[in-house]
């Protein structure tokens, strides 16, 4: 009997390579658990019955194009859309022999922090099904937390891997911008979107990242990795300089339980030999969120223009010329959040406002990058809570977009700077997982993995939700 709640991807790969189970048996075992638990959690939008590889199966967030398998971005406007091509990351997983388990739920077009914005209904948190899993990659993180997938891919624009990883008690990496191909990823905000791994532990994350990362000739914004991804072995943090940005750790709205768990982890890092000191990111934290909410919706307003009912997805019926068809298709097809962001973004880009909004936000982005660069002159890694709070209750923020946007307050600044960030569970607060964020220099994923791995061993966090044991 395979215990999918405990089994890591690395262990699963070991079982397969030693011939103890076949890839098909492994795939079947996960489908069985999905059939049992997913009706409650709704982590998946669809599953794939026939494994297309002999390795450890994987779940993909439904913004990742999969040839022949419906890809909806959790939007009604893409219902029924079956891509004729694989996203580069999907193709790389296939080439590595990882069969597709299914496509996971998300906030529509990855716009949200709770997975409640899905046109197909929310995903629930495996630790407490009255709470959200975070978002937008909540389907992927919930699936991994509940043993419905050994590992998964998510995508992160403002914190959509890190924040749900934190809320579900799993490990998620948002890679350096430009290291993972966006080809075939349903675009939200192109200058920020980045696909990354989600797994039960840091080593699994590194294994999966090694499969997907690297330059793709189909994505002009990707680069070669300066060094290969290594599997972390480190058990201490000797020589590592850890910066604790005051503004990220003392921001308004951080729950005391979250602060406590994070502070204990920082003390643990010191005990493991790290050199810990304080640093400042004042402008990044003050302006990060507002600038993000100008840049991301601006790009989204343009990226979402292609959903017009002509070539794929939902097309509204009725009489009249093609322009009336566009109007009806988009009115029916998009949910409230995409509509809100299309309007915000169109406004921010329009003549007379561009300089004050989009143009200004891009300048601030440079300031944020410089502020981070300065911090990295003294430190190798910056740490903070991933999310100000633990998982919140379903419906608690749906009526207040600004409260929902604040969930990404701590993940957005480094995303705006294009930097890699790892979120790993560091303890519980009121029985719910707390996420610890490690931010690195560009291309320093190996540093994050080593530090994460050492902390993970020392923390010995049990990633199996109590109620599922």
């Amino acid at each position: 009997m395979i215990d999918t709640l405990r089994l890591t991807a690395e262990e699963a790969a070991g079982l397969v390579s030693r011939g103890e189970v076949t890839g098909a048996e492994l795939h079947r075992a996960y489908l069985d658990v999905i059939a049992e638990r997913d009706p409650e959690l709704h982590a998946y939008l669809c599953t794939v019955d026939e494994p297309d590889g002999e390795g450890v199966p994987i779940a993909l967030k439904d913004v990742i194009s999969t040839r022949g398998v419906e890809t909806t971005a959790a939007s009604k406007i893409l219902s029924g859309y079956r891509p004729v091509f694989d996203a580069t990351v999907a193709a790389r997983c296939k080439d590595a022999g990882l069969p597709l388990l299914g496509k996971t739920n998300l906030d529509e077009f990855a716009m949200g922090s709770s997975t409640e914005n899905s046109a197909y209904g929310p995903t629930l948190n495996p630790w407490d099904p009255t709470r959200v899993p975070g978002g937008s990659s909540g389907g992927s993180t919930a699936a991994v937390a509940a043993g419905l997938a050994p590992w998964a891919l998510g995508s992160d624009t403002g914190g959509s891997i890190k924040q749900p990883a934190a809320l579900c008690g799993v490990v998620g990496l948002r890679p350096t911008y430009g290291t993972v191909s966006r080809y075939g990823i349903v675009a939200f905000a192109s200058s920020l979107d980045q696909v990354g791994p989600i797994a039960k532990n840091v080593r699994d994350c590194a294994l999966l990242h090694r499969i997907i990362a690297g330059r793709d000739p189909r994505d002009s914004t990707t680069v070669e990795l300066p060094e290969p991804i290594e599997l972390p072995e480190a058990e201490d943090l000797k020589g590592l300089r850890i910066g604790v940005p005051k503004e990220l750790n003392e921001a308004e709205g951080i729950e005391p339980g979250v602060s406590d768990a994070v502070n204990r982890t920082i003390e643990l890092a010191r005990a493991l030999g790290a050199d810990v000191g304080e640093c400042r990111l004042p402008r990044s934290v003050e302006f990060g969120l507002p600038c993000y909410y100008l840049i991301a919706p601006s790009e989204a307003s343009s990226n979402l223009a292609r959903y017009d009912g002509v070539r794929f997805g939902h097309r509204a019926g009725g009489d009249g010329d093609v322009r009336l068809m566009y109007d009806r298709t988009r009115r029916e097809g998009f949910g409230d959040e995409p509509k809100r962001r299309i309007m915000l973004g169109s406004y921010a880009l329009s003549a007379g406002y561009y300089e004050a909004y989009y143009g200004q936000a891009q300048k601030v982005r440079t300031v944020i990058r410089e502020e981070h660069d300065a911090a990295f002159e003294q430190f190798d890694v910056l740490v903070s809570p991933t999310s100000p709070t633990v998982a919140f209750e379903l419906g608690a923020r749906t009526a207040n977009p600004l409260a929902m946007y604040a969930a990404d307050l701590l993940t957005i600044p480094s995303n705006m700077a294009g930097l890699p960030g790892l979120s790993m569970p560091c303890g519980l607060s009121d029985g719910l997982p707390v996420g610890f964020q490690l931010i690195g220099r560009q291309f320093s994923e190996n540093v994050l993995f080593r530090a994460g791995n050492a902390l993970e061993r020392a923390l010995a966090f049990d990633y199996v939700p109590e109620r599922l044991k």
Partner: protein
Amino acid sequence: MSWEPVIGLEIHVHLKTRTKMFCRCEVAYFDPPNTHTCPVCLAYPGALPVPNRQAIEWTILLGHALGCSIRERAIFHRKNYFYPDNPKGYQISQYDEPLCVEGAVTVPRPDGDTVVGIERAHLEEDAAKTIHVGGAEGRIHGADRSLVDFNRAGTPLVEIVTKPDIRSPEDAKRFLQLLRQTVVELGISDAEMEKGSLRFDVNVSVRPAGSDELRTRSELKNMNSFNFAAKGIEREVRRQVEIWESSGEVVQETLHFDPGNESAPPLRTKEEAQDYRYFPEPDLVPLEPEREVVERLRGELPESPAARIRRLEAEVGFSLAEGLVTSGRDELSSRIPGERAAVANVVMNELAALALDPQAVNADELGKVIERRGEIPRAAFDEALAASASPGFSAERYLAEAAIADVDELDPVIDRILGANEQQVADYRGGKEGLLGFFVGQVMKDTGGKANPKVVNDRLREKLRG
């Protein structure tokens, strides 16, 4: 008060690259609809653009030819608008940081050069082709169905914008002819208007001669030939002058010509300013062409058409020089030995009408024929021209056919023709000297084209003097 026209041009040139601008679909405009498409040019979710290196190099080459400076860093922007021909909802174009800027093109004229400034030349992708069925006049509004052919979607286009430096319709036509010849000679475009690989819009305003103000302009669209454009500009200039002189005010509007019907009056619309919400294309990195490439391309520039016109003008006069160069026939003309103007005349007139492959013409042999044109029958001359590009063409055979130059043989024919056309003879003597050609034609017809044209002319003149 005297007025001067202020004219600026925006020209779109299709680059004849093998593949599209941002995907590797073949460029084939006239294949069956929607046979050259892929996730990128159909704008499927997640598809990303990858620039065509050849198109970028050719734009740099053109930039050199237009005397532009090539920027070290150019940016692709998104130009956002909804239309069925635009599958992404935005066109990838260039905005405030184009590849080529600040150029100048010398345009030779009979009375000295004029220089037309080039604001910019940038690279962008073309839209798909749309047909609207069932609505009024093929318009999208109220159409039952709109059909789209994506073969053209994403094909590379260069847009060239001149400064408002052009001062007459003739100069506008001259500039366009030179530009077309330039891109053809660079080998980067077919530049054929009828195939849509060269399109242009004209901005026209007028102002009191000598002032430097810029008054309200109108935009002329869809003109299908350079001559038609010159006429259209002339009419629009006249109209604007009349408005100003009657104390009126010219309003900004667009004149859409009907390319299928030159005599139809243009449709006038007052375009509301579109907001394209330009922003830098985040799917592409800034374009930073390597300096070695830019310099290598500069070295590949051939002699410009304008320089060749000036060089040839000394030999054959301005008009023939301009005609030869802008029709791409000067190379052939220069290969044919003989008196330059006589050769140029034949190349521009009789030979041009035959549409031969200039490369195949045996220039040396043809030169012999042209040199002795006056001594051989017209029919033999025409036959020689028609055969001049065929293998084994030799002048000898045609020169052997001596024309009838014997006055005793020709006079009876001439007398008979004058006798049969008394009215025309009277008219000629009454001053209609243009009728000479008519009599020459009749004699040629009667002699089966074998009469010596010079002798016929001389005899006719003499007899008609009476």
